[in-house]
């Protein structure tokens, strides 16, 4: 019989709670150093233009201004992820409105603003491409005319404005569609949306006399930023130290270098510490938002609702640089397949350059856009076949032991339970409970991203435990989950764990707070470290108690053998006197997920590790005259494998839904001719508490074979299904299908008027 769990699986308060609720936690934006200057970035004002001249002479004469830098002042390097196409400042030309052209450091923020206004830049406008269709049109201007010279990972398929085309090819899609009784073709569109983190991107940089730069940054990936800065500054990574204080949210928007490079470059130029913080306008015009997309689906189905084949294409408007685009376009193909058994697939994901801001990663990158299309179409198909949408899904979903779209073996599949429990909870048998009221359901799957994690775990002489991790706590509670694993394994309490995190100088490597992986990977690294410490503790205790190590166990902060016991504190002191203290290095890397390599092309992410499954159900009302949508109930049944801390798993679900409802109903960054027309939080509409019902979470637990205690990644998934679930409920309520996000009141009213003249 497995021992009863004391710490994991319990709804304990998070380790960082006290500092955050009392306002004591220092965030990057709070960080101040003596003599610190304020940095600001001058941003391009043309979507596509040759830079004729940058003249900063007037700016440099202004009071308080210490430095102005532009492309001429930095090494001519291109950096990036899968594709290195970015530069710190625009060189020769600007490619989007908002692209950094120069940066200034001044004694005050106001002086820096004044300096920006005094820099004269002369542009010679060039023809630009404003959307995917324009970028792919024959003879379209190239966003990067020298795209072929850029370095990239070799598997990418690139051509002109296409910076990757990833494919899944399975079976024979022609045959699959020919076998179908009905073939459904639809097109869906989604708009660019921002992560909406509370704290803007912020960094403070300071150089020391030895030529090392320290950067306090609210990044999710300190080790990636360290490497990127090494490229930009042309220094070995060891000369760059990244520390992450508190982060006011990230959601994928703080993965890549944001303002750290400006702070570091300005600090080097001035010899003073420099802080750079973005404004709301910069966030909404020049950050790393979620790509707008066009999705085309052609799906074959038999009369009795069996999916026979699917042809699909999703085009990501990735903006002026590739950013996360090539990877996101790859992941998207797995979402286009859906959590369904479809024998014949031809799925393509395109990342396309346009003259807009560089899109990036946003909580389950590609998930919401592709799932919106897939799950909207499932409902359309069900309606056309006269089937219940739930039944159509149950007929086609993946189950234990099925194959994923690229041939991976699926295990721990809790999807059927998710669908049935979400449907039961929402009262699915009464799908249209009143006039203009309807219920919708949507389901999906997602990955638990790999990448390695290391932790150092030390047992202190008072018996408490120090957990030193390179991962950053970005507000998800993930490191509390990992600490719970450690506490469980070492027989201590969660309050005994002290956390040190995210300092590239002293903490072990971690792949970073991304891809729903932190509690999963750091938790597993903690398990490994705990196993090592048990060996060390038992070796010491064995001598101390005169008992064979095999007979020992850990219980309530002690090593115990029958009636004999010795405390962890005593053993730690003993080790300090004799053996340099109790410390262990635990590591984890998710094992590779085998897949059929012949089924993919130019694919950066061919299989989902320890996949999670989920179903969302919503009950809403539409005012047919004003188009106003009111959500009455929202239910999520998510297969989390095992909930390390149910409270924070539910918190992730609630936040993910709120953010997803934003994309579903109200949020969009609106571009007109290459310029954002709503670059402020007045007109970029994130939902408020009044826009959301209480979100009901059902934690389904089909354990993963790899995760700690069977846990799967939980952070990203709840953001995937809201647009589809809401779209399906709106269609159920009013009988009209909206195929573009956001589903605004205006779209609803106009669609209804078109339907009933």
């Amino acid at each position, binding site marked *: 019989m497995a021992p009863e769990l004391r710490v994991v699986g319990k709804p304990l308060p998070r380790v960082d709670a006290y500092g955050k609720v009392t306002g004591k936690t220092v965030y990057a934006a709070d960080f101040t150093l003596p003599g610190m200057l304020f940095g600001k970035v001058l941003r391009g004002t043309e979507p596509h233009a040759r830079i004729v001249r940058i003249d900063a002479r007037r700016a440099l004469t202004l009071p308080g201004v210490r430095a102005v830098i532009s492309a001429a002042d930095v090494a001519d390097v291109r950096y990036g992820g899968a594709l290195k196409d970015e530069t710190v400042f625009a060189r020769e030309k600007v490619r989007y409105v908002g692209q950094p052209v120069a940066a200034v450091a001044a004694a005050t923020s106001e002086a820096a603003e004044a300096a920006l206004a005094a820099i004269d830049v002369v542009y010679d406008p060039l023809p630009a491409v404003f959307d995917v269709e324009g970028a792919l049109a024959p003879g379209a201007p190239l966003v990067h005319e020298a795209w072929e010279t850029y370095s990239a990972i070799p598997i990418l398929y690139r051509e002109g404005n296409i910076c990757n085309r990833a494919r899944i090819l399975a079976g024979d899609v022609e045959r699959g569609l020919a076998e179908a009784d009905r073939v459904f073709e639809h097109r869906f569109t989604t708009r660019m949306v921002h992560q909406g983190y509370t704290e803007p991107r912020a960094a403070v940089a300071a150089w020391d006399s030895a030529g090392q730069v320290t950067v306090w940054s609210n990044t999710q990936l300190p080790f990636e930023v360290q490497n990127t800065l090494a490229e930009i500054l042309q220094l070995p990574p060891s000369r760059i130290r990244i520390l992450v204080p508190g982060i006011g949210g990230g959601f994928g928007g703080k993965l890549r270098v944001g303002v750290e490079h400006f702070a570091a470059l300005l600090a080097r130029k001035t010899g003073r510490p420099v802080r750079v913080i973005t404004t709301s306008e910069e966030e909404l015009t020049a950050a790393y938002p979620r790509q707008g997309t066009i999705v085309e689906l052609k799906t074959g189905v038999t009369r009795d609702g069996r999916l026979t084949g699917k042809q699909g294409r999703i085009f990501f408007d990735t903006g002026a640089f590739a950013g996360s685009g090539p990877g996101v376009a790859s992941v998207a193909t797995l979402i286009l397949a859906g959590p369904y058994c479809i024998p014949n697939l031809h799925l393509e994901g395109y990342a396309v350059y346009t003259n807009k801001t560089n899109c990036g990663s946003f909580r389950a990158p590609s998930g919401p856009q592709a799932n919106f299309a897939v799950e909207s179409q499932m409902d359309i198909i069900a309606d056309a076949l006269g089937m219940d949408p739930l039944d159509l899904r149950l007929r086609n979903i993946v189950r234990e032991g099925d194959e994923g779209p690229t041939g991976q073996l699926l295990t721990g599949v809790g999807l059927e339970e998710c669908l049935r429990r979400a449907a039961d909870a929402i009262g699915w048998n009464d799908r249209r409970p009143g006039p203009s009221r309807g219920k919708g359901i949507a389901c999906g799957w997602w990955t638990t991203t790999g990448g390695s994690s290391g932790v150092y775990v030390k047992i202190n002489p008072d018996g408490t435990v120090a957990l030193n991790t390179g991962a950053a706590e970005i507000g998800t509670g993930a490191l509390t989950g990992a600490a719970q694993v450690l506490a469980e394994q070492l027989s201590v309490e969660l309050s005994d764990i002290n956390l040190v995190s995210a300092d590239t100088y002293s903490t072990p490597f971690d792949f970073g707070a991304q891809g729903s992986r932190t509690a999963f990977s750091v938790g597993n690294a903690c398990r490994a470290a705990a196993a090592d410490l048990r060996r060390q503790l038992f070796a010491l205790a064995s001598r101390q108690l005169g008992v064979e190590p095999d007979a020992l166990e850990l219980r309530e902060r002690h090593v115990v053998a029958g009636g004999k016991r010795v405390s962890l504190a005593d053993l730690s002191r003993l080790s300090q006197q004799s053996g340099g203290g109790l410390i262990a290095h635990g590591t984890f890397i998710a094992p590779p997920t085998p897949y059929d390599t012949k089924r993919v092309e130019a694919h950066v992410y061919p299989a989902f590790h320890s996949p999670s499954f989920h179903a969302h159900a919503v009950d809403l009302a539409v005012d047919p005259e*004003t188009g*106003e949508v009111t959500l009455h109930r929202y239910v999520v049944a998510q297969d989390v494998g095992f909930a390390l801390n149910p409270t924070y798993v539910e918190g992730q679900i609630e936040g993910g839904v709120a953010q997803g409802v934003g994309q579903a109903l109200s949020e969009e960054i609106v571009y007109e001719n290459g310029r954002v027309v709503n670059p402020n939080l007045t007109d970029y509409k994130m939902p408020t*508490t009044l826009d959301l019902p209480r979100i009901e979470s059902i934690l389904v637990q089909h354990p993963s074979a790899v995760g700690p205690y069977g846990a799967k990644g939980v952070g990203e998934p709840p953001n995937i299904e809201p647009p589809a679930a809401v779209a399906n409920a709106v269609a159920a309520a009013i009988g009209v299908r909206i195929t573009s996000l956001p589903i605004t009141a205006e779209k609803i009213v106009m669609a209804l008027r078109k339907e009933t003249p």
Partner: protein
Amino acid sequence: MSFEYHEPPSVSEAVALAARFGSEARFLAGGTDLIVQINRGKLAPRHVVSLHRVPGLDTIAVDGHVTLGALVTHRALERSPHFQGRYRGLVEGAQVVGGHQVRNVGTVGGNIVNASPAADVVPVLLALDAAVTCLGPEGERTLPLEEFLVGPGQTQRRPEELLTTVRFPLLGPNSATAFLKAGRRKAMEISVVCVAARMTLDAGLERCREARIALGAVAPTTLRARAAEHVLEGEVPRAELLRRAGALAARACQPISDVRASSQFRRLLVETLVPRVLARCLERIREEGR
């Protein structure tokens, strides 16, 4: 940005400062519009004249009239016991201005002089036949709110004048007000369209004696829909008639298309919301009559 900051202790000294600096000065009340505009670089006053030390401007007086001091906050309107009955529309307008923090400091006077066509309290005040009083070096003048509003951000106020009070007549029996707003979300929202109405019925609660309909965010200023008002007066306000009033109101407005909504949608919202806001007035009158 930099400016000289003044804290005059009286209305007369505030006006004297404004007279001295003319258009280089701005009055600071709640600051929820002024500071935002300064921060966005849209306004750069050389002098900011704070009204915080000026006594008496934050009172709500109810005698033969209702008189609101310019510094009465939206929160004070929401909470005032005077406005929970017939004046309910005023509370409904005030309670959807921005968020709690904005309503705690933003003022009625500021909302009026900011002259946003989307202001939420202004249509209710128009429906209440409000008049505003301005004090300048040459003395006081009072003019109807409708005349006071000239265009987006523009009023009849001269730079050296301070808007001191807003005043409207008491509502008699068989009267009610209501306010409705449409936006993309349910709070923290700038109106895509807002409508306010006041209705007074005859003693038998049958015919409409007097109607006022005001529309926000559909023209350069908040405006009255007079044709819609006229069609109601003297008639039995049946649902069909309310819809006609809605259609007339929609015809009266001249909305623009912008990132928030198209002009066509705004017009449709007016057509929908006007009958609803009138129906709400009728419900309230009948409830009070019971």
